[in-house]
């Protein structure tokens, strides 16, 4: 039988099936992207005056933009490291022959399935220094109360983000752990390797692709975080949690500078893609096979 190529009747049928998806993507993905890129070269309240690269040169020298990027970088580092360490720890814990393993898995995954708005409001109430549950619990056991959102706001919203997303990374690591052939561990046991050595020498290296995937996704979601700042802290106190996307949003919808905010969006995209490529390149070198 001849192989079917992308020509002729079969191809036409295939493209016909693809057409709805292509149209959908064109309308809701490529068109807005094109619009944002075009807007980034304009200025004024209605983005109707040509400015060329003016928005870009302004953005790279703007202290507020630099500050928001530093805040976002700090937030991302916490989220990435937390996702990997906590996700892996939970996966290792769940990967044991425990009773009620499925229940643990579901409980840990539920926050991930909850909207960031609900999670934000929930934690805002929990963390309230005067009326929140957390400080009341601390008082009940005789511990000093904490100003969670005032003394360590970035760490706090990173912790909330982790609480929400760690179930997902746990599931990914769990899949990775269960994909490692048991024979490797058996061979290591025969050679006298203890649990720590088996984890360090077998599990961890073989989890490299999963770790890479988790870290790439965590970096992307960290750099794109918005809801946490918008709902929990409003970017405050001061500008302590002024995450990049929140900053971009404010430039667009508070100060009505759509051209400038579009330029910042494009720059952020470039940063995200660059980080991702660096991670992928680094990850390629860490892959092992046995």
């Amino acid at each position, binding site marked *: 039988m001849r192989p079917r190529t992308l020509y002729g009747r079969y191809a036409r049928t295939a493209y016909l099936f693809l057409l709805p998806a292509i149209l959908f993507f064109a309308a809701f993905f490529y068109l807005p992207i094109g619009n944002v890129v075009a807007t980034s070269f304009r200025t004024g309240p209605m*983005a109707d005056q040509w400015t060329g690269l003016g928005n870009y040169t302004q953005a790279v020298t703007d202290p507020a933009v630099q500050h928001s990027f530093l805040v976002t970088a700090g937030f991302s580092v916490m989220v990435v490291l937390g996702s990997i360490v906590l996700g892996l720890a939970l996966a290792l814990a769940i990967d044991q022959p425990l009773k009620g393993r499925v229940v643990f898995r579901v409980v840990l995954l539920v926050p991930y399935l909850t909207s960031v708005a609900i999670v934000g409001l929930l934690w805002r109430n929990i*963390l309230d220094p005067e009326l929140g549950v957390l400080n009341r619990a601390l008082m009940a056991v005789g511990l000093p109360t904490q100003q969670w*959102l005032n003394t360590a706001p970035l760490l706090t919203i990173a912790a909330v983000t982790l609480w929400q997303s760690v179930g997902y990374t746990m599931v990914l690591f769990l899949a990775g752990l269960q994909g490692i052939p048991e024979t490797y561990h058996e061979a290591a046991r025969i050679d006298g390797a203890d649990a720590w050595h088996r984890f360090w020498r077998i599990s961890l290296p073989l989890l490299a692709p999963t770790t890479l995937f988790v870290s790439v996704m965590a970096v992307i979601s960290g750099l794109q975080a918005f809801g946490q700042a918008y709902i929990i*802290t409003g*970017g405050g106190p*001061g500008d302590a*949690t002024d995450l990049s996307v929140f900053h971009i949003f404010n430039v667009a*919808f508070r100060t009505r500078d759509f051209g400038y*905010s579009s330029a910042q969006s494009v720059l952020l995209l470039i940063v995200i893609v660059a980080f991702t490529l660096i991670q*992928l390149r680094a990850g390629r070198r860490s892959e092992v096979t046995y």
Partner: protein
Amino acid sequence: MSAHPSRRDLLRLVGAAAAVPVLSSCAGAPATQSAAPGTFTVYWNAGHDYQAYRKVIAEFEQANQVKVNLQKYQWPDLRTRLLADFASGTVPDLVEEPGGWVQEFAVSGNARSLQDFVDRDGQAMGFPADWQPVTVERNSYQDKVYGVQLHLTCNTLVYNKGMLREAGLEAPTTWEEFLDAARKLTRDGVYGVALNQDYTYMWPWMVQAGVTPYDLETKAIMEPRADAVAALQFQADLVHKHKVAPVPVAGTDYSGPQKLFSAKRAAMILTGPWDLDPIRKTSPDIDLGVAPPLKNKTAATQAAGVSMFVPAKATRPELSWDFIKRITALQVEQAATKETGMLMPRKSWVDLPEVQSDAVTKVFADALPTARDSSQEVRLTGQLGKWEEQLKVMYQQVLIQNEPAAEALDTFVKAAEGFLK
């Protein structure tokens, strides 16, 4: 998803995941539905859906044979939606705004002048003669009216009468008395006062200290500077030095002090009539007291309240104006006050029996003549958004993070000088 994706798979995923939210954050909101012939679209604040207004809407629908599509939002979301509408060119017929947007959008050409309607119908409806002057000023640009005030509110002292009685105190009238009362009231897990994280709550203190936020002619910002610093530092000291107020929590809403007051964890708060209803509903046992604005150099407060305007591209301004006329009638103000305790902008509203016989409403009403608009001159520069962003940062740095007021204010003024040029 496989736990072992290839690099190519990863790149595909990454490309898609990275691009969509970042770029779509500025791509604009979905377009408003076109103004259908039989539909009249109004953007309204979610907290102002009163029965009194529902009745007006029903009458308006009947009279004009249209269906009112009342879309309710919180202010930040309303602004986001509205700006997206301006960009797309499809706008609602009428917009309620929180104060300040009318002039901002008049300057940018997004609001329609209502002067022709005012010239024609103003006398019959009592506009502007029956409106408090501050409400006409704040809704005008280049001597033309662009918006009509719907509510006029102000910020004053709300206190727990029982707690003050127990401490043997009268309601304070000056800053010194206020601090003294707050000290005496702070005990057993109760704070004397709760301050707001929202920067707009600093204005009553500023106007009482005689500070002018911005002078269009001289370009002076926050002068007299020493008084502005003192007013800011006084607020921060309540929290950090005297410890008579909890550290406010940065956030997006302004209900923190009201919640503490309702929970009987704060004896005094500085707020407006918008917080009275939640207090009465959540803590009906609190004997609520309202006192006139505090006095420092002067007894004054900040004018607040909402207005309505018609977008420049609205296709049926006549209908929009008819809606404005109906909803600002004196009997509607009366019904809304009866229903919610809201304060209104008509001068004749002050003389209504509902106002004069209600001890709480009367205090607010009596304070209205001393209410000042805190951002009018900034609005006229078209830079209100930047001004507010910088103010928020500065205020929280002082009030929450305990940065010295002089330094924070100096940084703010330098930034403001840059964009107000």
